[in-house]
């Protein structure tokens, strides 16, 4: 094996572009999946089954089909229906939507873990339902779900290379392009491998700090 530091140096500008795309996809994907997941979890608790059933069916469907298929579907089929989104937007929406069906389960578990006595105390104080959710239940549930959500951030990070399939040049895309141009594979792939580890570690650290801040 021969390692060439000049190849590493030459890869840097492209790597930086790819890194930014990966980070942006991760940040926006997380944001969408955290928000939508909470929305699904809350909708699944409405009394009317005309809300619960559709939400249940759609999220089950999304959870049970591969992300890659969803990416292709959104990227190639939606334009035929007259909805054209940029590759990046499509990718972020697909990842966020896909992972929202997982985070939804995390929220559900967190909400279920709030003791029944908390609901009863809220009833005894005559708190309206919305106020009970916002002031009592969600603050306690969210505190419990942070570690589990953190795992999905890391899983999402590791799924970002799939965006390559719909022409988004994130880190792996850039590495592949560079390899094809310069016939060097070891250096760019090693660089992005290390980058994945570093991003994962930083994300874990960030979430653990957040967790400690919340668990007081």
């Amino acid at each position, binding site marked *: 094996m021969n390692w060439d530091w000049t190849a590493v140096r030459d890869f840097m500008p492209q790597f930086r572009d790819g890194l930014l795309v990966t980070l942006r996809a991760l940040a926006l994907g997380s944001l969408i999946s955290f928000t939508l997941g909470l929305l699904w979890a809350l909708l699944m608790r409405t009394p009317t089954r005309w809300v619960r059933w559709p939400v249940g069916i759609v999220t089950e469907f999304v959870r049970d089909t591969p992300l890659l298929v969803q990416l292709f579907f959104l990227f190639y089929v939606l334009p035929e229906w007259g909805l054209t989104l940029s590759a990046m937007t499509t990718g972020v929406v697909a990842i966020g939507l896909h992972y929202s069906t997982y985070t939804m389960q995390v929220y559900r578990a967190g909400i279920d873990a709030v003791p029944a006595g908390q609901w009863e105390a809220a*009833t005894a104080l005559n708190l309206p339902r919305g106020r009970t959710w916002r002031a009592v239940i969600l603050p306690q549930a969210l505190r419990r779900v942070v570690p589990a959500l953190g795992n999905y951030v890391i899983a999402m990070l590791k799924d970002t290379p799939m965006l390559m399939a719909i022409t988004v040049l994130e880190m792996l895309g850039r590495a592949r392009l560079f390899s094809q141009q310069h016939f060097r594979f070891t250096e760019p792939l090693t660089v992005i491998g290390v980058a994945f580890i570093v991003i994962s570690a930083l994300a874990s650290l960030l979430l653990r700090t957040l967790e400690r801040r919340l668990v007081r």
Partner: protein
Amino acid sequence: MSVEISNVTKRFGDHTVLDRLDLSVKAGSHVTLIGPSGSGKTTILRMLMTLTEPDSGTITVDGQPLFPAAQKQRRAVRRQIGMVFQQFNLFPNMSVLRNVTEAPVSVLGLSRDEAEARARELLDMVGLADKCDARPSRLSGGQQQRVAIARALAMRPKVLLLDEVTSALDPELVAGVLDVLRDVATTTDITLLCVTHEMNFARDISDQVLMFDAGRVVEAGPPEQIFGAPEEERTREFLSAVL
């Protein structure tokens, strides 16, 4: 406020917890429910707080129907009723002060300042004026229960339900909680409905004691009668077992 329970039946599965129960509580009176576990005492309090529904029968509070009644009506009636739980059920995500001000602000519509002034008064009454900013988890069980009492009183209830409020406490913390409740009983005209295993407390504060067994009232009377000269064999049996 008076409470009227008539012909109420409640079953869990094929176990009948309350069996065609009639019970009437006069406004301002202090009623204690005693009896063995599973005899339906707590279920009565939970039904009055609308935490569980009877299978049949009617419940009225101050003449207003609580069951059967529409949701809106029940909310209106429930507003007059407060409850203190065996497990305190304080909100762990809020400070002690916020626990006491949350409902007065968001339900009664008091301003935050008004609610806080009142909360401090109540916390002072239960001897916890210096714990306003603490989280409930920093307090002992007895202190938590006193906060829970202040929280319930902050809603100015006309009826207060006390569900085995000292059962989860270490023995040396019981007295502090009972002192606070004695205070409430003597200085306010709140109707008290109390489920307890503290017979001395029951004797102290009640005008009326109801002995429950198997979902029915087997004996009712002033504490002197129930504790001094019980007429029913079942009451004598129970009291000799717990005293």
